[in-house]
C-alpha cells in the first residue's frame, strides 16, 4: 500500500509529538533548582587554608606568571612570628583577580606550589560595575576552618620555617 505510506509516516510524526506532550519535562527551574557541577568544573577561584587556619598562599606570584590573561596581581610581604599569615617567609598581602580578564583556564591551579589557589564550583559571578570585577583577597580566601584562628596568628618561633610543605610521597 504505497498510497497510504506517506499518511502513515505523517501520522507517526504527529503521534510522536503528541506523546511528548505528556512526557516528563526536562527543564531545570534554575534559580530555585541548581544542578551540582561536575568534579572538574572550573568556577570562581578560592584561596585555601591549612587546617590550623594559616593561608596556603605564600605570595610567590607563580600563578600571576602562569596566567595567560594576566588577570592575577600578587604583592607579597614578610611574615613574622608575631603576625603570621602563612608558613615560611612571605605571604600575599595583596591578591587580586580581575574576573573580566580571567578565562578560567586553571593554569594558576597548576602553577601553585602549595595548592593554595583552586578553581571552585561557584559560577554565579555577575556584577553591575567594572570595579566589582576585581576580586580582592578578602573575597577569594575561604574562612578559617572551625576551631582554628583566623590570620594573622601569633605562632611559636622556629615552627613554620618551610613555605612549601615537605612532600611525604614523591610519587604523589
Amino acid at each position: 500500500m504505497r498510497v497510504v505510506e506517506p499518511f502513515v509516516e505523517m501520522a507517526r510524526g504527529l503521534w510522536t509529538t503528541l506523546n511528548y506532550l505528556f512526557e516528563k519535562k526536562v527543564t531545570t527551574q534554575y534559580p530555585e533548582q541548581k544542578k551540582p557541577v561536575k568534579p572538574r568544573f572550573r568556577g570562581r577561584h578560592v584561596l585555601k587554608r591549612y587546617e590550623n587556619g594559616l593561608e596556603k598562599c605564600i605570595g610567590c606570584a607563580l600563578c600571576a606568571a602562569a596566567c595567560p590573561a594576566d588577570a592575577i596581581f600578587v604583592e607579597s610581604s614578610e611574615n613574622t612570628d608575631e603576625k603570621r599569615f602563612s608558613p615560611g617567609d612571605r605571604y600575599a598581602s595583596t591578591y587580586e583577580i580581575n574576573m573580566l580578564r580571567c578565562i578560567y583556564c586553571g593554569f594558576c591551579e597548576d602553577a601553585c606550589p602549595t595548592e593554595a589557589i583552586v578553581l571552585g564550583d561557584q559560577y554565579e559571578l555577575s556584577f553591575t560595575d567594572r570595579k566589582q570585577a576585581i576580586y580582592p583577597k578578602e573575597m577569594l580566601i575561604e574562612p578559617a576552618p572551625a576551631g582554628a584562628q583566623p590570620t594573622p596568628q601569633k605562632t611559636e618561633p622556629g615552627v613554620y620555617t618551610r613555605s612549601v610543605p615537605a612532600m611525604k610521597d614523591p610519587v604523589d
Partner: protein
Amino acid sequence: MTLGHVIEWLIKGFVLALILLGGFAYLTLYERKVLAWMQSRIGPNRAGPWGVLQPIADAVKLIFKEELTPANADKLIFLLAPVITVVPAVVITAVIPWGPSFDIFGYHLNLYIADLNVGVLYIMSVASIAVYGIVLAGWSSNNKYAMLGGLRSTAQMISYEIALGLSFVSAILLAGSMRMLDIVAAQSQTWFGFIPKWSVLLQPVGTAIFLIATLAEVNRAPFDMPEAEQELTAGYHTEYSGMKFALLFMAEYTKMIAISAIGATLFFGGYNGPFVSRFPWLGPVWMFAKIFVLLFGMIWVRATFPRIRYDRLMAFGWKVLLPLSLAIVFITAVGIVLHDQVNHWFLLVIPVGSLLVAGLAVASIDRMLRRKDYARR
C-alpha cells in the same frame, strides 16, 4: 434601523474586537506552552501562575521598545502596512455566528454582527486584503530579505486562496447558501439521531484542503515561507519593531483565530453541539471548543513538520490542490443533484467520490516523487 440597533452593533463590535485581541494575546501563550510541552520543556511560567501574565508582560515590553524606521524606507507605507494587515484580520470575524439567538432580559440578542447573505464571499474578499499589508510591509522596508518575504507571501497566499475558495464552494454547495447562518443551520440536524450532519463528514477531502490551504494562507509552519527564519531572517517583518511589529504579529495570530472560527463554522457545525437547542448559551462554548481544537491542530503541525521547499510549495498548490479542489466541487455538485433528483442515498457519492479522487491525487504525487530525476531538482 433605530438608534438601539446602532448601539447594539457598536457594543457587539467592541466586545468582539476585545475578545479577538485578548484571544490573540492568550493564543501566543497557548502556542508557546504547547510547543514547549511537545519539546519536553515547561514553557513560560515566570509571569504569574503558569505564566498567565506573560502576554501582558510581552505587550508592555513591545510598547516600550524603540520603533525603528529604516533610512530609505517608504515612511507612509511602512506605517500603513501593519494597519492594512491587522484590520482585515479583525473585520473578517464580523459575519461569523458565535451562537444561536436568544432572549436575554426581554431583549432579542443575535450573536453575530452582520448577517450578510454573501457571508462566505465577504470572508474571501476581506481575507485577500491582508496580502496587501504583508507585501507592502516587505516592499516598503527597503530590505532585500523583507522584499523576498513579501514577494513569497503574495505568490503563496494568492495561490492557496484559490484552493481555499474552492473548498469553501464545497461547503456552500452542501449548505445551499452563502449565508453563514444558513450554513450553520444546515449542519444542525443529525443522521439516525446521533451523527451530526457536519460538512466534514460529507466532504472530508474538502475539509482537508481547507485545513492545508489555511496553513498556507496564514503563513504557518510548514508553509511559513514568508518568514522563513533560516533563509530570510524574519521575512516581511524584518525591519519592524515595537508596536508596528506587534501589529503584524497580532494580525497573524488573529487570522489564525478567525480562520479557525471560519473552519469551525463551515465544516465542523459552527456552534452546533449537544444541548445547544435547550441551552443557547452553550453555543459559544461549543464554538470556542472547536476553535481551540483547530488551533491546537495548527500548533501541533508546527511542532511536527519541517518547512517544505518553496518550489514544492507552489507545485503542490497549483498542480495538486487546485485540480483536486476543482474535482471536489464537481463531485459535490453531482452528488447533490443525484440526491435531489434520484435518491437521497446518492449523497454518499460525495464522500466516497472525493476520497477516491484524493487517493488518486496522492498516488500520482507519490509516483512523481519516487521518480529518480525529481530528487536531483
